[in-house]
């Protein structure tokens, strides 16, 4: 019916008789004639839209309703980024790409998500740190998502993020405590922390990790989660090797400037928004949303809020043995390493 209506309309147009509608009194004729028209900014390139414009177009297509289209746009962006020669600026700056792309962490389609991870990994690592707080929020939203696939996927994103901008992630506002809570919820260790006596009897788990799939795959998922937690705790609690070296060299550096101490503290800060921890412009933060920039702070909060639950869960995992046990052992090692110096202080 629709097409016939259209045909009718077209036919009517063909046979239209009479005059055009009279122009209103205040109508201004803007037609003009010219021998030639010269545009001041005319591109000389033959392939009409520039790469930048095409990238912008594809960025806008990320909202498209078809997941194939979204995936293809992501793929286009990825190739565009990877093909830019090192040193040359990206077709679109990362500050434009990242906000447009990060929502797709929560995308329902699997293909889109995997492609998204590729794109993220293709981005220059130095630019991520400035956008880490938004990315962490999205990753956390993914980790609490109803769908288990998205939950698992966001662990990938988190691991990538920890690799690229680990320090910013753990010291960002809410990045430590909320993330820990998130992990506890994900692993199902929260319940155990609260209600010890409920040992093996699990009542009415609905969408928790354990409800899905075969026990084998479930264990796999849990291994992934524990690995991610290990990476997270390692970043938050342990002194990075690089940094330790840096400290040593710093001491030597300071010794070389002997009478001047702590020069770097009086220089201009090297990162943007250096006073973020003062929270001058935002709403007041509670303990959970607070920034824990210091390693010791993080250790303290970890001890207060999560260590018990993590240890209990870890012990169970180690007992389970196999893949899970290995992951548990890794976690235990990281925990010991991270909390080694802190435990001594507490005792003292």
């Amino acid at each position, binding site marked *: 019916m629709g097409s016939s209506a259209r045909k009718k309309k077209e036919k009517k147009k063909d046979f239209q008789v009479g005059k055009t509608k009279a122009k209103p009194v205040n109508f201004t004729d803007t037609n003009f004639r010219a021998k030639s028209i010269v545009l001041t900014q005319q591109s000389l390139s033959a392939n009409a839209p520039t790469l930048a414009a095409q990238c912008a177009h594809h960025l806008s297509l990320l*909202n498209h*309703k078809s997941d194939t289209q979204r995936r293809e746009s992501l793929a286009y962006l990825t190739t565009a980024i990877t093909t830019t020669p090192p040193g040359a600026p990206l077709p679109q700056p990362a500050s434009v790409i990242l906000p447009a792309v990060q*929502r797709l962490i929560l995308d*329902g389609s699997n293909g889109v998500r995997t492609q998204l991870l590729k794109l993220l990994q293709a981005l220059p690592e130095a630019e991520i740190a400035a956008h880490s707080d*938004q990315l962490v929020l999205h990753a956390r939203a993914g980790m*609490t998502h109803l*769908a288990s696939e*998205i939950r698992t996927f966001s662990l990938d994103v988190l691991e990538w993020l920890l690799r690229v901008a680990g320090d910013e992630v753990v010291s960002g506002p809410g990045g430590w405590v909320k993330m820990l809570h998130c992990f506890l919820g994900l692993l199902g260790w929260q319940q155990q922390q609260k209600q010890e006596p409920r040992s093996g009897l699990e009542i009415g788990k609905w*969408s*928790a990790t354990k409800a899905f799939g075969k026990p084998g795959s479930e264990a796999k998922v849990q291994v992934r989660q524990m690995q991610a937690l290990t990476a997270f705790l390692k970043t938050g609690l342990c002194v990075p090797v690089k940094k330790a070296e840096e400290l040593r060299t710093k001491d030597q550096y300071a010794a070389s400037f002997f009478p001047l101490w702590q020069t770097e503290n009086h220089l201009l800060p090297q990162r943007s928004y250096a006073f973020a921890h003062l929270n001058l412009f935002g709403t007041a933060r509670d303990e959970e949303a607070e920034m824990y920039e210091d390693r010791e702070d993080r250790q303290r909060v970890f001890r207060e809020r999560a260590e018990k639950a993590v240890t209990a869960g870890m012990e169970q995992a180690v007992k389970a043995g196999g893949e899970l046990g290995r992951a548990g052992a890794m976690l235990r090692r990281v925990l010991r390493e991270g909390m080694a110096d802190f435990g001594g202080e507490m005792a003292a």
Partner: protein
Amino acid sequence: MVKRKVGALEKVEADLASLQYRCRRDPSSYQEDFQNQWNQYETYRELFLTNPTTTDDSGVVSLRELIDFVAHCADCFPTITAQFPDQLIQLLTLHHEELDMELRDKIVGSLVLLRNKDVIDSSTLLNTLFPILVTTSSKSLRQLLFSKILSDLRASNTKGTNHRLNRTIQTVLYNLLTSDRESPKGIWAVKITRELWKRQIWTDAKAVEIMKEASLSENEKVIVGGVRFFLGGDKEREEAAEDSSDGESDIDMAKLRHQAGINKKSKKKGRELKKAAATVKKKERKKNAPHPLNFSALHLLHDPQGFAETLFSKHCQNSKSKLPLESKLQVLNLVSRLVGLHKLTVIALYSYFLKFLTPRQASVTSFLACLAQATHNLVPPDVLEPLVQKIANEFVSEAAASEVAAAGLNAIREICARQPLAMNDTLLQDLVMYRKSKDKGVVMAARGLLSLYREVGADLLKKRDRGKDAAIGITTGTIKERRFGEEDAGDLQGLELLAQWKEEERRKKREAMGLPAELGTDEEEEDEAEDWKNWDVESDSSDDSEGWINVESDGEDINISDSEDEKPRPAKKTKLDTAEGDAEKENKSKSEEPDSAAAAKSIPKLLTTTIMTPADLAKLRELQAAQQLKSNMPSAKRRAALANAHYDDAITAESIEAPALLGKKKTKEEKIAMAKGDREEHHQSTTAKRKEKKAAEGKSTTNKEKARKKNFLMTLGKAKGKQKRSLVDVRRTLKGHIDRQKRGGKRGNAGR
């Protein structure tokens, strides 16, 4: 752009709706799942707060769904969601201007839901919603908020009046009006108050006070809102009450029961039937319940004199007020209504009218109506006299159009009915002469004036115009000139009839008992006690069942009469002669000379010493009706009409214009329409009407009717067996045929 339908959650296997269902069924088991969703909500909220203006579909949609989910489960997990209401309130108050529309509506809805689940209290909700209602620029949000606020106020007042909440909200509204008198925001206070007044939720003086402040504001919309409330709010309330009482009242229980017997029985049907029965019962109870005593807004005003004065000086007299004529007229209407109703004295008001009383003034009849309305018997006549004079000069002349003259005469009549002293004899005699005019409207108006003055001030008329009653009255001295400020003593019409009737009854009874027709005071008192016994109209059986009443029996009955003796009952026979000699004497005189003067004396006694029972009042009404039948003279009618006129009722421009319409020639169409009236056009036979009525009542048809209406395909089978009938059957059929032919058809004409 067409809105894209996004469902981040659509594509995955889990959905919030079923989780919500499970959470509500078994909160403790699903606490962990809820905690996860709560975490998700928190992250989404944080994401959203970083950029509240976002139009990113999926994020907003997820947040909306999560808010909905959490709101529905909030009462199951009070510890986890302790922060939730505050977060919503904050989100709404800070970002209501830029929020996505659906999300905004969802937040409002969730807050209301939380209120309904008693997670937050009404005052929190209203204190959140009201400031947004006042400030927001979005029309749809305003509409939503307004309806939500109203429904919440109604809901919290259903079980009993929530005085505390009402008081807080009333204070908020009052402060809104008084804080900034020029802002148009006050209109919301007016709207809310009016709506709640209409629904009889707010019926107290505080609500009236709010409207008073509204009418004293500076903004035109607010003023008109307030004034309209005073002029029409009570009528609206009455109408609403009527509507609610007779709306959807037609539940036919008999029909429902019948249907329940026929149709398949199910639990649902049973429940419906029960529900209907409950509704009917409730309605019945409501019908029998005493009518709630509601004072009108005008009567609840705290300081009517001050209000009227400020209203008048602020909006009418003040040359700076920029109200258009229409609004000004409404204000004037209110002022004059107040003056007339409360008999206030606002002297400046009358001189203010002076400049508007010309026929060329726009909507002058409204001004005339206002003037009449503002007149009462305590207005000094010398203030009114120039006004009456001016109306007479400007409107009532041979040169003026007949409608104008009629309107002027009618206005004068209305004024003088309220204050007869405003007229002097020369002017009156002049005006009365117009009854010889050619125009019917003018004639009627002038006659109205004449008949008015025959009652209230016949001595101003010429002798031949006074009429029989008034002339006799003046010569005998019964009609006296009323002075300014003179008031009638309180009187109840027909009271003397009641007294007479009671006296007669008493005498009859005493004669029946064999006692002397005279009676003592104590016995009179006893009678009163007996009156109390048959309190209700139904129990008033003294006429036909005298034998049943035992006069001596109840010593401990209620005794509310004002007599002084407090002695025990047994001693009453001994003090027949001593205690109240006066009263006795009076009684004697009354019985001896049935004179009008004595009757007049006894009326105040009856008024002051007894409390009328409903039975008494019913009898009084009956006697009055009988009396009216007796005196069906036109003069009596006129007097009754005058007595029945309530001078504190409103007068409209239409009532001033009414006599002018009498003289108007109607067109043919109008005449035909009038003659037809509201009779129905469609003709229907009586049988058809009866049948329709029967069908509407849900009654079944007769067997004959059923047979006639039966589908003929069903009858075919029977017709086939025609050949196999027995001889008896054939004979019966043939006889029937002959009989039908004689009768003239199957149903025949029985009357023939």
